[in-house]
C-alpha cells in the first residue's frame, strides 16, 4: 500500500519520466526528422561498429568467462581468493579510469611497445575490460552447485573427461553462460567512459554509438541524439528478448510436470 505507492512514485520520477522525455523528443520532429537522424551515415557506422563489437565481446566472454569461472571453482592455486576478488574490479573501477589504465599500457606510452590506441582493437580491448565479470559471476554459482554425481555417473557409464564436459557439464552451464552474455552485451552496447580516451573517437573508424550520441549533444542537436538513442535502446531490448527466449528454451527440462 504505502510501500507500493512510494516505490512507484520514486520509480516514475527517476526512471520513467526522463525516458518518456527522451522518446518524446526523439519523435518530436516527426517521422522524417527521425529517419534522417538514424540513417545519417556517421550514425549508421557508429551503430554498426557498436553492434559488431558488442557481439564479438559477448562471444569472447562466453569462452573466457567460462574458463576463468572454471579455474576459480574447480582448481586450487595460491592467491585464488585474491584473483576471485579482482574479477570484480571492472564493477568497482570508474570507466574513465579503466580506459586510462588500458591506454597507459597499450597506447602510445606503452612500456611494452604495444600500441593499439585509436584502432578498433582498442574498442574491443576496452569493452572486454568492462564486461569481464559478467559471465564469470553468472557461471560460478552454477558450477559450484553442479551435481558432481552426474559426472561420476557419466564416468561409470564409460565417458571420458572431454565427453563428460561436452555432454554433462556444458549443457548445464549453458543457461548461466547465456545470462552472462546478455548482461555483457547490454553493458557493451552502452559503454562510453572506457572508450572515450583510448579509441580516439574517430568517426567511421572507432566511433561507437554512445560517443556519436554525445557528439550530437555537444553540437546542440539533442533531437538527433535522442533518435539514435531510441534505436540503440531498441537494439538492446531486442537482443535481451532473444537471449531470454533462448535461455527459456534451453531450460525447459527444469519445468516440473
Amino acid at each position, binding site marked *: *500500500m504505502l*510501500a*507500493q505507492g*512510494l*516505490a512507484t512514485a*520514486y*520509480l516514475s520520477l*527517476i*526512471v*520513467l*519520466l*526522463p525516458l518518456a*522525455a*527522451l522518446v518524446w*523528443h526523439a519523435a518530436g520532429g516527426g517521422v522524417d526528422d527521425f529517419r534522417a537522424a538514424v540513417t545519417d551515415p556517421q550514425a549508421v557506422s557508429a551503430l554498426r561498429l557498436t553492434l559488431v563489437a558488442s557481439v564479438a565481446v559477448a562471444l569472447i566472454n562466453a569462452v*573466457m568467462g567460462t*574458463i*576463468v569461472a572454471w*579455474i*576459480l571453482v574447480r*582448481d586450487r592455486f595460491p592467491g585464488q*581468493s585474491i584473483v576471485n*576478488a*579482482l574479477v570484480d*574490479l571492472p*564493477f*568497482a*573501477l*570508474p*570507466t*574513465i*579510469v579503466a580506459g*586510462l*589504465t*588500458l591506454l*597507459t599500457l*597499450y597506447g602510445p606510452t606503452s612500456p611494452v611497445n604495444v600500441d593499439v590506441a585509436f584502432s578498433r582493437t582498442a574498442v574491443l*580491448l576496452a569493452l*572486454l575490460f568492462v564486461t*569481464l565479470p559478467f559471465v564469470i559471476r553468472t557461471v*560460478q554459482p552454477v558450477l559450484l552447485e553442479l551435481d558432481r554425481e552426474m559426472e561420476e555417473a557419466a564416468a561409470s557409464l564409460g565417458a571420458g*573427461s572431454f565427453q563428460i564436459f561436452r555432454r554433462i557439464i556444458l549443457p548445464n552451464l549453458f543457461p548461466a553462460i547465456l545470462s552472462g552474455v546478455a548482461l555483457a552485451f*547490454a*553493458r557493451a*552496447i*552502452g559503454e*562510453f*567512459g572506457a572508450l*572515450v580516451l583510448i579509441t580516439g573517437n574517430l568517426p567511421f573508424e572507432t566511433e561507437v*554509438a*554512445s560517443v556519436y*550520441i554525445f557528439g550530437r*549533444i555537444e553540437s546542440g542537436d*539533442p533531437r538527433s541524439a*535522442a533518435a539514435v*538513442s531510441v534505436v*540503440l*535502446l531498441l537494439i*538492446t*531490448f531486442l537482443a535481451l528478448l532473444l537471449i531470454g527466449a533462448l535461455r527459456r528454451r534451453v531450460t525447459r527440462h527444469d519445468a516440473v510436470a
Partner: protein
Amino acid sequence: MTRLRRYALRFIGLGYLGVLLAAPVGLVFQRAFQDGFGAAWDAVTTPAAKHALVVTLIIAAIAVPANTIFGIVCAIAIVRHRFPGKNVVNVIVDLPLALSPIVVGLAFLLLFGTEGWLADLPFDVVFALPGMVLATIFVSLPFVVREVVPVLREIGTEQEQAAATLGAGGWQIFRRVTFPAIRWAVAYGVVLTTARALGEFGAISVVSGRLIGKTESLTLHVEERYQSFDYVGAYAASVLLAMLAIATLVAMTVFRPKEETR
C-alpha cells in the same frame, strides 16, 4: 582432468586476467608515483581536484541512502505484496543496467533542459548539482533491490507472521525480524551502489556541463586533466579512484552473499 590440461587452463585464465586487468591497473599506480609521492599529492590536492572530490562525495552521500531506502521498500513491495503491474516494476528496476549512461544523461537533459517538461523549476537542475545527483540515482538504482529481493523470497513470511501473532506491529516487525534478516544483502547492495555512484562518468558528463570547479566530479576531473596533458594529475586522480575501487572490492568480498563464494 590431466595435469597438463589443468595447467593449460590455469595459464589461459590467469593470463587473460593479467593482461586485461592486473597489468594496466598496476601500471597506473606506477605512473602516478613515478615523479614521487609529493608530485602525486600536489596533483590531487589542487583546488579543482579537491572540489571535484567534494562534488563526488556529496552526490554519493545523497544517491546511496536514497537508493538504499527505495531499494528496501521496493523489494518488500515486489516480494510481499501483490499489485497490478508488478512485473512492469521488475523490468523498470532493471532498466538502468541495460541503458547507456549517455542516453541516461540525455534523457535528464531533455526533461529538465530549456525545452523540457520540467524546465521551469525554481532551481537549476541541468548544468548543476541536482542534475548530477538525479542521473547518479538513476544509474545506481537497481543494486539494493536486486540483492534484497532473493533474500526476502528465501526467508519467507513465517517469521514475520510469528512476530505478528506475538503482538508486534508493522514497524516493529520490520525492525526486529525483517531487517536483521536482510541486512547483509542490504550491505552488499550498498557497496555496489556506492561503487557505481562514485564511478559514474557518462551520464554526469552530459548533464553537468563539466564546469571546472563547479560541476566537475572526480571522474570528470580525470578526463579533464588528461585532455589538458596533465598526465600526472590524471593518474593521481585515477589512483585515488582506484583505491576507492579496491576498498569496494574488499567490502564486496566481505559482504558477498554465500552462494557465490567457495
